[in-house]
């Protein structure tokens, strides 16, 4: 909020301080020795309770998603990637057995499973980075989109698997889109702390970070 506040600058100490008579119109117009300045003061509105609550919830949502991916990366053991059977391999193979979307199932059966090690590493690295960036609140909007895409891949893989609740993956997608839409990294995250400096910099990397945050 921009506030125009008149103030008086006067070199004569005898006329400064309390008890000074209110200036006349001529004095305001600068016809006396008293210099009057109009100062533009930018006053940020005090955060309302709703603002604080919203920011707290958004930060909690972002951190919660980060912890979700932290666990997702935690149970995948790279030492077993590429073996014909294993916990993660079984999940991926289930996309073919319990088909959700035919073209996706074809892709899994003909492209992913024959090259399982490569794709397993890609998933592992993606989930590690998702956890990292969402927990930090760094380049959050970019990684929220990545998280939504990863959640969609998981949905297409396991939504029809017995004992799975498909709605949970729709909720994951929705949560990531909410983090994207609200730029939740600006709430208690590094995006909020560093974005002003990035905006003022001419460095190309910082320009990209502004767009990603």
């Amino acid at each position: 909020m921009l506030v125009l506040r008149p103030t008086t600058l006067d070199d004569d100490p005898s006329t400064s301080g309390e008890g000074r008579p209110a200036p006349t119109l001529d004095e305001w117009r600068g016809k006396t020795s008293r210099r009057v300045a109009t100062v533009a003061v930018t006053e940020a509105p005090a955060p309302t309770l709703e603002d604080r609550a919203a920011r707290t919830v958004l930060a909690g949502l972002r951190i919660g998603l980060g912890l979700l991916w932290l666990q997702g990366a935690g149970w995948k053991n790279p030492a077993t990637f590429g073996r014909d059977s294993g916990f993660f391999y079984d999940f991926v193979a289930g996309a073919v057995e319990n088909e959700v979307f035919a073209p996706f199932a074809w892709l899994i059966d003909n492209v992913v499973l024959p090259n399982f090690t490569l794709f397993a590493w890609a998933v592992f690295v993606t989930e590690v980075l998702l956890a990292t960036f969402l927990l930090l609140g760094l380049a959050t909007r970019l990684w929220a989109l990545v998280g939504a895409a990863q959640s969609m891949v998981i949905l297409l893989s396991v939504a029809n698997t017995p004992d799975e609740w498909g709605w949970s993956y729709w909720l994951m997608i929705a949560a990531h889109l909410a983090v994207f839409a609200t730029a939740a990294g600006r709430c208690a995250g590094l995006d909020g702390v560093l974005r002003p400096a990035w905006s003022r910099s001419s460095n190309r990397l910082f320009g990209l970070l502004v767009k990603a945050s």
Partner: protein
Amino acid sequence: MILVAIVLAVGIAGLFYARNLQFTEPEGALVYPAPDDFFWARQFRFNPLGALLTIAVGGIALVGAVTRQRAVTLVAAASSFLAAVFMVIDLRGGEPLLAGRGGNVSLLLVLALGLAALELTPSVPPAPAAGVA
């Protein structure tokens, strides 16, 4: 400081839970063991070596934060990043030296990227005081 505190806390907890293991036990021990379906399960896994490494990089970061030495903080960030890369390479083998998992890698990357972002971003000059228009 928050990042450093979290990393040190997890590292120290890891050392506590791994205290009865061999120094380079490949399986490691879970921090705060819980049933597999509990949301906290399988986040971090340490053996004593992995825990000490985590505490070491956290300690360097703490020194940098307390002394406000940019060079020390950047060394901590680089060390943490290298530790994360080493842990990923280490995980390829069947018996990882540091016993970590993806959660451990992410923890180290949080410290590395967080410190690097904070130290390498130029500071914003303070807003100018009210002056004569």
